[in-house]
């Protein structure tokens, strides 16, 4: 089977709203940049995969069709909520590995700036029969988990604040980031409480923007600067959060779907000592608690050692750098966020991450997280080809 590489990355800047561009122009802009980075034109692309999550966020029904570029190409739209971006990338890698394409353009757009009430929209993702009558939103879902982590593993509000402040400070070095805040954990704790224990400066922003990448089969990569997809895995879990709270094999905060994805992706990539073999990590962590849940799932530490792992990141330079781009707290264009994680890892591996570049990156790992922490993806990118 052919190896697949990321040979081009394009990102618009992420911001609250791009009033100066139509949805299609945003898609086009990111795609154009990715093609230029790959030194290709649209004629070289065999198929297009477009990722858009809830359309209610943009108020447009088939906005992904704006990704129709070139003539007569296979085109599919992917919608897997928070993991839409990474699912779209994986749809592309699969298409290439099936032998049906040599080069695939993958693009994801978030247009939520057009929505006037996004948390109301997020409420409509829940089951209309049993759950819609409650104020369930992405924020309260995260809060339910954060309180569980505090009780089970000893995390404190200070840990959540440290993680958030680090991400916002990292975002200052990312020109595409939306929210760049040079703040401390104290500033986070002093910000208003949204839903205990989540403070305003822990929540991610609502961002618009597009991300695109060119994926290529090994025989057309040539001498291009490539980040090889060494591992890619995706796992879905039960929707019912209540079913997972006391599940013997993994509770709600154990992120079983992320662990299973990591194990498969790491095996494909030949990773058995993740802390030594990975230099940069881009986590889909819209909230600090989501980052904490990812540590044990990625085999960085045992669940009960999580709080210490947060502290060690600030003192041990040998540990992988987490969210050098600022992560979703720096910008959260929902439909694109999981693709942005992979794009940022590709830039790290290719040595093209500018001011946010981590030194000597051989491997970088991107995660995706969506639904009711129900959909999880892990993508390993590296300098070397792995078959």
């Amino acid at each position, binding site marked *: 089977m052919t190896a697949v590489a990321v040979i081009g990355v394009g990102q618009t800047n992420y911001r609250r709203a791009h009033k100066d561009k139509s949805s299609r122009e945003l898609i086009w802009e990111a795609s154009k940049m990715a093609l230029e980075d790959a030194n290709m034109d649209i004629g070289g692309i065999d198929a297009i995969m477009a990722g*858009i999550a809830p359309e209610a966020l943009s108020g447009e029904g088939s906005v992904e069709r704006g990704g129709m570029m070139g003539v007569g*190409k296979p085109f599919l739209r992917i919608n897997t*909520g928070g993991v839409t971006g990474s699912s779209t990338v994986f*749809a592309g890698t699969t298409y290439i590995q099936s032998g049906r394409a040599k080069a695939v353009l993958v693009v994801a757009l978030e247009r939520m700036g057009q929505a006037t009430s996004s948390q109301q929209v997020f409420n409509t993702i829940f089951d209309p029969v049993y759950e819609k009558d409650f104020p369930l939103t992405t924020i309260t879902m995260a809060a339910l988990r954060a309180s569980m982590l505090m009780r089970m593993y000893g995390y404190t509000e200070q840990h959540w604040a440290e993680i958030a402040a680090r991400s916002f400070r990292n975002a200052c070095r990312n020109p595409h980031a939306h929210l760049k805040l040079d703040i401390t954990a104290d500033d986070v704790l002093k910000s208003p409480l949204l839903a205990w224990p989540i403070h305003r400066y822990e929540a991610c922003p609502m961002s618009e923007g597009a991300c695109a990448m060119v994926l290529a089969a090994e025989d057309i990569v040539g001498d291009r600067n490539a980040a090889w997809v060494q591992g890619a895995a995706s796992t*879905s*879990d039960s929707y019912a959060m209540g079913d997972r709270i006391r599940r013997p094999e993994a509770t709600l905060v154990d992120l079983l*779907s992320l662990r299973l994805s990591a194990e498969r992706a790491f095996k494909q990539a030949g990773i058995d000592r993740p802390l030594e073999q990975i230099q940069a990590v881009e986590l889909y962590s819209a909230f600090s608690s989501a980052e904490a849940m990812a540590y044990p799932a990625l085999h960085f530490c045992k669940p009960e050692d999580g709080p210490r792992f947060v502290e060690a990141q600030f003192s041990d330079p040998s540990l992988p750098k987490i969210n050098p781009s600022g992560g979703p707290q720096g910008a959260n264009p929902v439909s694109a966020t999981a693709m942005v994680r992979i794009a940022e890892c590709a830039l790290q591996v290719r040595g093209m991450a500018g001011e946010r570049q981590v030194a000597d990156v051989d491997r970088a790992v991107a995660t995706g997280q969506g639904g009711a922490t129900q959909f999880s993806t892990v993508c390993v990118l590296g300098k070397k080809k792995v078959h």
Partner: protein
Amino acid sequence: MALENVSVYVEGVALEMSWADPRRNLSEFIFDTVRNALDDAGGSLDGITSVVLAAHDLVDGRSLSSMVTAPAAGAYLRDEIRYGDDGAGAFAAAVTRLEAGECERTIVAAWGRSSEHDVDAVSRTLFDPIFARPLGLEELHISGMRAQDWRRRHGGDSRVAAKQRAAAAARNPRALHKGGFKSAASYPLVEADLPLWGDVAAAMILTTKPTGVRLAGLGQSSEPYWIGDRTLHEATALRQAAERAMREARCKPAEIDIFEIDGLTLYDEAIGLEAIGLAKPGSGLDALAGNEKCNPSGGGAAGYCAPSMGLVRIIESVLQIQGRAGGNQIAAPRRALATGSSVVAGQTQTAVILEAA
């Protein structure tokens, strides 16, 4: 083209067309069909590591449908992906997973319940809010313009073809025989040309292990973004998709025994038959009226709801090849071509050729 050493086979299928059954919520409606497809494949989930779905949030009335519905389709701890595209597109994506060696068995499923949502209102959202939506455009209006463009060039009307189509649907035991409704027809369409909106769920188990039905060819293509940039009286993307599928299957239209063409209206089906090369330009309606190989299922008259129709067409083809179609069985077909189209107004097309193995 696909890896030479991997072939894709159909292991089990299930299909439901019904109307406003209040006994089951959407998840339960989906579960029944997926469970039936699993049972048709022998009942076991062993070795199924992949689930590929086609569903639309606005059709399902859940802003992230697959969050609630995917577990009903077998997503639990499996590699599940949801396409916001037609079921035939999801079928194609599932095929690439098998060909890439990612799995050995996969579920493919698609559904939509016309009885739960406002079909016309959802159709209006598909058009861009700047230039098209303020006009109140619906996909059926595009089909009307397509029909008009075709009629102006070729003349004739759909009366005989519509009668044949209704008779075929009446013979199809899986068709929606009670309930459903039709939208208002816009000129030159008449009610008999329109799809019968129903509740539709379709599911299939695909495998790399040989069974009686094999995938012989697969092709996909797309139309330009702007509807004004398209040639409405032809279905260019469908022509390209079918050409790709037939090249892969090394066959010509004359060597195909069954055609199951997905189109929103009777005219879309007729133009589709011309696009794939079975009928000459201008004779698509004649083919539907007189050739029993064309849409033996009854097409859109048998029940319709996006985004499941491409998968329905594929399943109808499988049942024909297996000799299990029932009242609408065509004598011993060996090879079938099924197509699926998606928004906006047939913008993306998938063509699939299946053969008796």
